[in-house]
């Protein structure tokens, strides 16, 4: 193959990657610019309306405080003034516009957030927090809210479209880069690799113009890496590999590409987000701060339910307790249900796997209902046996037990079915031979049954421990972390950081990374144990 064609092949692969990087950089810069511009416009307009003036194109209003309806105090209403006097702010009133709901919700949200942040500011006089957000509906409108004497001044900017994607610029630098690369290849030798680097580096030019230095540096790295790969003949070997396995790769492509897009991309983004802090819709880079805060326990006492090590301990305990119960109950039932004299085996089996068939969120909610209340189902059963009722979710031990009981109910059938399968595959002759040799029941169990159960149970236990570690619904829906978040496990706590504690996405992402590392260690480590056990038997 001619050197120029080869060179252009390598260049196009590298360029495709770099175009992705440059596009991401462009979109990021463009969105940031748009947000800054719109937000400052909204800010200015809100300041103006507070003074009674307006800016052209910007819709500015004053929203009055929420007043309870005289008849039904839980229904609140607000007044709105847009220069032409006050009118009620409702969806049905005359003169209502689609933006009215936006203003109403923003006022409610603003008051909730400011009062939540500092209860001292409830009196209104101290309310000096300005809130300006870019609306999350993709219209590019920004909404500014600032407190004034008679309510909240609000300004809503007109929609704005972000700058268009710079096709021409990118096509231009692509052509320039290709020319560099081809020129290098024509000269040959070391110049070929120099041409590759220069060609790829051409794509960094627009990134530099947009002020996105990270993207430019990444592109430069790609260029150097590609030149190095060419030098070591890696690109040729890779191309030969692809040609040799064309069919296989073609068959694999749909699933592989969708996995790259749907799993790998979010996964990498999740890793990156762990290095950022998210506050009021803006991200700021904080390095390893989140990880430090998590792993040091964030200065909290070890028995604080927000301390990572406390949650980790709960999670380990949760996994161990559940797997132990699943395996014991499952194997015990399997031993009984595989007796040759037992009648109605199929029926017993069907009945005992009912818990597996019920969707697990329903299971969790059922048990939640059974545990809840002084006269709940579980307490009623305790009363039948003359025991006192328990307030299940008010102490750690009982709340944790409630979770474990629920999850045991839900999980033992899997182990039972696996164990029955393994037991049925044991040749009957082994037991007969053992009986002839005078082996006792225990000896037969110890030396025939157990070694045959192990190869099947090993993977099942690894799988079961991972499922239990990851179990979200039971903890989230049964105890809900009560009391005081002390029964949360790692996955539940990560969720709460993201969606229940003021959108701390960065913390949640860092949690996700740590959970991933723990699971990775466990799968590598766990499958080792399984394999060595398998080799023994």
């Amino acid at each position: 193959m001619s050197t120029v064609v080869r060179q252009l092949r390598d260049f196009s692969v590298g360029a495709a990657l770099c175009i992705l990087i440059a596009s991401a950089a462009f979109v990021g810069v463009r969105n940031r610019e748009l947000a800054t511009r719109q937000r400052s416009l909204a800010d200015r307009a809100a300041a103006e309306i507070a003074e009674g003036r307006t800016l052209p194109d910007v819709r500015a209003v004053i929203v009055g405080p929420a007043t309870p309806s005289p008849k039904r105090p839980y229904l609140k209403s607000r007044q709105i003034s847009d220069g032409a006097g006050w009118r009620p702010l409702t969806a049905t009133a005359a003169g209502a516009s689609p933006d009215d709901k936006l203003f109403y919700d923003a006022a409610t949200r603003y008051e909730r957030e400011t009062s939540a942040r500092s209860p001292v500011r409830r009196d209104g006089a101290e309310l000096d927090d300005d809130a300006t957000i870019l609306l999350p509906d993709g219209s590019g409108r920004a909404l500014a809210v600032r407190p004034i004497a008679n309510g909240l001044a609000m300004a809503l900017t007109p929609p704005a479209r972000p700058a268009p994607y710079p096709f021409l610029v990118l096509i231009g630098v692509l052509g320039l880069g290709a020319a560099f690369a081809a020129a290098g290849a024509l000269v040959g030798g070391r110049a070929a690799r120099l041409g590759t680097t220069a060609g790829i580096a051409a794509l960094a030019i627009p990134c530099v113009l947009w002020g996105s230095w990270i993207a430019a540096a990444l592109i430069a790295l790609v260029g150097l890496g590609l030149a190095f790969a060419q030098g070591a003949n890696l690109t040729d070997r890779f191309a030969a590999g692809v040609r040799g396995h064309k069919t296989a790769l073609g068959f694999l492509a749909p699933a592989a590409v969708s996995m790259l897009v749907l799993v790998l991309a979010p996964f990498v983004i999740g890793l990156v987000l762990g290095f950022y802090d998210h506050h009021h819709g803006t991200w700021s880079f904080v390095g390893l701060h989140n990880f430090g805060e998590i792993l040091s326990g964030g200065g909290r006492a070890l028995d604080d339910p927000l301390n990572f090590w406390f949650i980790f301990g709960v999670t380990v305990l949760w996994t161990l307790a559940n797997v132990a119960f699943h395996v014991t109950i499952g194997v015990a039932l399997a031993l009984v249900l595989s007796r040759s004299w037992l009648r109605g085996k199929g029926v017993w089996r069907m009945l005992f796997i009912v818990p597996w068939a019920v969707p697990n969120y329903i299971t969790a909610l059922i048990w939640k209902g059974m545990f809840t209340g002084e006269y709940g189902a579980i307490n009623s059963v305790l009363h039948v046996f003359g025991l006192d009722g328990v307030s299940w979710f008010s102490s750690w031990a009982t709340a944790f037990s409630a979770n474990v009981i629920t999850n045991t109910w839900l999980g033992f059938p899997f182990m039972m079915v696996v164990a029955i399968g393994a037991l049925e595959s044991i040749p009957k002759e082994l037991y007969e031979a053992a009986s002839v040799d005078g082996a006792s029941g225990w000896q037969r169990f110890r030396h025939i049954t157990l070694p045959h159960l192990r190869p099947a149970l090993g993977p099942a236990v690894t799988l079961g421990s991972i499922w239990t570690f990851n179990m979200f619904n039971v903890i989230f829906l049964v105890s809900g972390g009560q009391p005081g978040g002390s029964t949360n496990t790692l996955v539940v706590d990560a969720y709460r950081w993201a969606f229940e504690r003021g959108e701390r996405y960065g913390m949640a992402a860092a949690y996700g990374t740590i959970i991933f590392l723990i699971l990775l260690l466990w799968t590598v480590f766990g499958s080792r144990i399984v394999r060595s056990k398998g080799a023994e038997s």
Partner: protein
Amino acid sequence: MKQAPRAHVQILIYVGLVILCFAVLYPVMLVCKKAFEPGTQFALSASPIPTAFTLDHFSQLFTERGANGELLFLRHAVNSIVVALLTTVVGVSLSCTAAYALSRFKFPGRKTGLTMFLVVQMFPATLLLLPLYVILNKLGLLNSVAGLVLVYSTTAIPFCVWTLKGYFDSLPRELEEAARIDGASPWMIFRRIILPLSRPALAVTALFSFMTAWNEFIMASTFMTNQTKYTLPVLIQSSVTEFSADWGLFAAGAVVTSIPVMVAFYVLQKYLVGGLTAGAVKG
């Protein structure tokens, strides 16, 4: 093992099994009782036998209307069916060729690929929940069927790849070899021989993907915040929050949504165990 134990031991074991069975089925019986018993409290007595009978909870479930007068249950059921169906179609169609490649071809990275699909299947969906939420939020795909289908596909595809690969492994290779000698291309072999032969496996895999999507709760409740976009699990959960708990409505909803998947589970459970353990053993 060979000789049965004495009669009274046998009876004892049967009694033990009956008690245990009752304990295992008790929660299910309570829910069925609640579905047909008036009142919103979960249980006021330990007895699983209803004292009064009503169909009010079901009629309430089916006739409840949303803000715009639409029937909520119907709307949510349609959402659930559409999401689960699309997930199944995406999962099976994207993964069947990959499963075949992983089962039949030798190529560098095959083992890594298999491990990747297995690992992805094992890692918690909640791990990807946050990045997916951030991305879908940026793309404006929250509260959309498409967004939820994309999210569910992250688990459906690896699952389908592994189960289908297990089945393809068990197919004899002679047919393919004969076809190859007759000059059939790999794609023709896959289309004309493998796919028709694997119809049962495709059906089973599809049903499992459907059930998984149908039963998923936390993703749906995070991504679908608009009430008209709820799926059935979110609807059912929202009937028993801390603030207002209508356990009668919950029980009726639970019965209606669980029965179809439970029937499917019983029909298919032997395939599920085979697939799961085969994946774990060979991985």
